[in-house]
């Protein structure tokens, strides 16, 4: 500011000299106002003064304020972009983690299903085998029982026949025959 003012002063002195030199030429009049040298010192002085003051005020107050506003906006935009990038990164990470989790869960589900299937299949086979064995046993048992019953029935039939023979002989012929003879007779007939 001081430097500017001293420059202004220098210019004023210079302009004053110029004006003094052109002092007598002033009287002409009617020419182009721009060429009226007598007005030069005042114009130069006020130009330098207003320009210097404007320069001082703009440099000291106005321009830093504009720069500050622009910078703040720039910072804000940069910060916002930064945050957006960070959030995006986070979202991508989450997505990746989520996908990994889903994949893991699917794999676990697959193995669970597989083991369950195997277990069910083996259990089924086991039960089927047990059932088959039981049925088999029961059939054999039943067959054995039938065979025994048949043998017993066969054995009894001779006895009943002998009894029948004894009773028939008693009624029909009033013969008293021993059970032994009756049996022998039945065996003889059955033997034919």
């Amino acid at each position: 500011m001081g430097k500017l003012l001293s420059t202004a002063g220098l210019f004023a002195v210079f302009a004053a000299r110029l004006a003094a030199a052109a002092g007598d030429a002033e009287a002409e009049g009617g020419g182009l106002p721009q060429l009226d040298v007598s007005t030069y010192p005042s114009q130069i002085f006020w130009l330098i003064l207003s320009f210097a003051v404007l320069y001082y005020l703009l440099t000291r107050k106005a321009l830093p304020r504009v720069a500050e506003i622009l910078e703040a906006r720039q910072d804000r935009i940069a910060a916002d972009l930064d945050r957006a990038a960070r959030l995006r990164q986070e979202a991508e990470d989450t997505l990746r983690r989520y996908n990994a989790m889903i994949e893991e869960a699917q794999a676990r589900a697959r193995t669970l299903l597989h083991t369950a299937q195997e277990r069910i299949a083996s259990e089924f086979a086991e039960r089927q085998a047990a059932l088959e064995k039981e049925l088999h046993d029961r059939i054999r048992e039943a067959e054995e029982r039938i065979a025994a019953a048949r043998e017993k029935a066969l054995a009894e039939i001779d006895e009943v026949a002998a009894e029948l023979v004894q009773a028939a002989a008693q009624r029909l012929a009033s013969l008293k025959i021993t059970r032994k003879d009756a049996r022998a007779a039945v065996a003889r007939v059955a033997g034919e």
Partner: protein
Amino acid sequence: MADPLAQFEIERYVPILVGNADLSFTNSSLWMVVSAGAVYGLVMLGTRHHAMVPGRLQSVVELTYEFVADLVRENAGKEGMAYFPAVFTLFTFILMGNSLGVIPGIFTFTSHIIVTFTLAMGVFLGVTALGFWLHGWRFLSFFVPPGAPKLMIPVLVPIEILSYCFRPISLSIRLFVNMMAGHTMLKVFAGFIIALGVFGVAPLAVNVALTAFEIGVAFLQAYIFTVLTCIYLHDAIHMH
């Protein structure tokens, strides 16, 4: 018909005499002070809320700021940004002076050669001093075109120096002539409006169009002055 050049007359509002020098507060001084105040006031008013999402005025301030910043960066390089406040002041001050001048009745201080010449001289001296300050005497090599044959150097260097010294003249005359010509033309056509009676509608229409044109010129000339300043700044910082 009024003299179309009367609008350029300097009127002394408050006579101030310092020794021999007439430093009177004039119509020109008034609009210089108003322009400077308007630039500062608009920037401060526009940024008073420090809004993250800018309103209309803050947008204008921010756009102007970035416009000038881009201008400096593109034409003078990153190192030129150190001089951004000076370039911003130059651009906004000239733009405000030019634009206010389009409003009828307001004195256009940039239509005076001494004003534009002082501004151009300030740029010229500042940039030249910067060149010497940054590069020392090596800055003189700026006047030797690269790749020129040795034999031609004695011829080329004076031409280069001359063209370099003509910079403030072309810079100041371009701005002053543009502003003066536009305003003179506006006044000439304005003079016809009353003189032609009903047919004055024609020059009135011309004046409407010219006023729009002058708004463009006001911006364009401020822009050209600033771009050239940036280019000179580039020369001083980078040499070629």
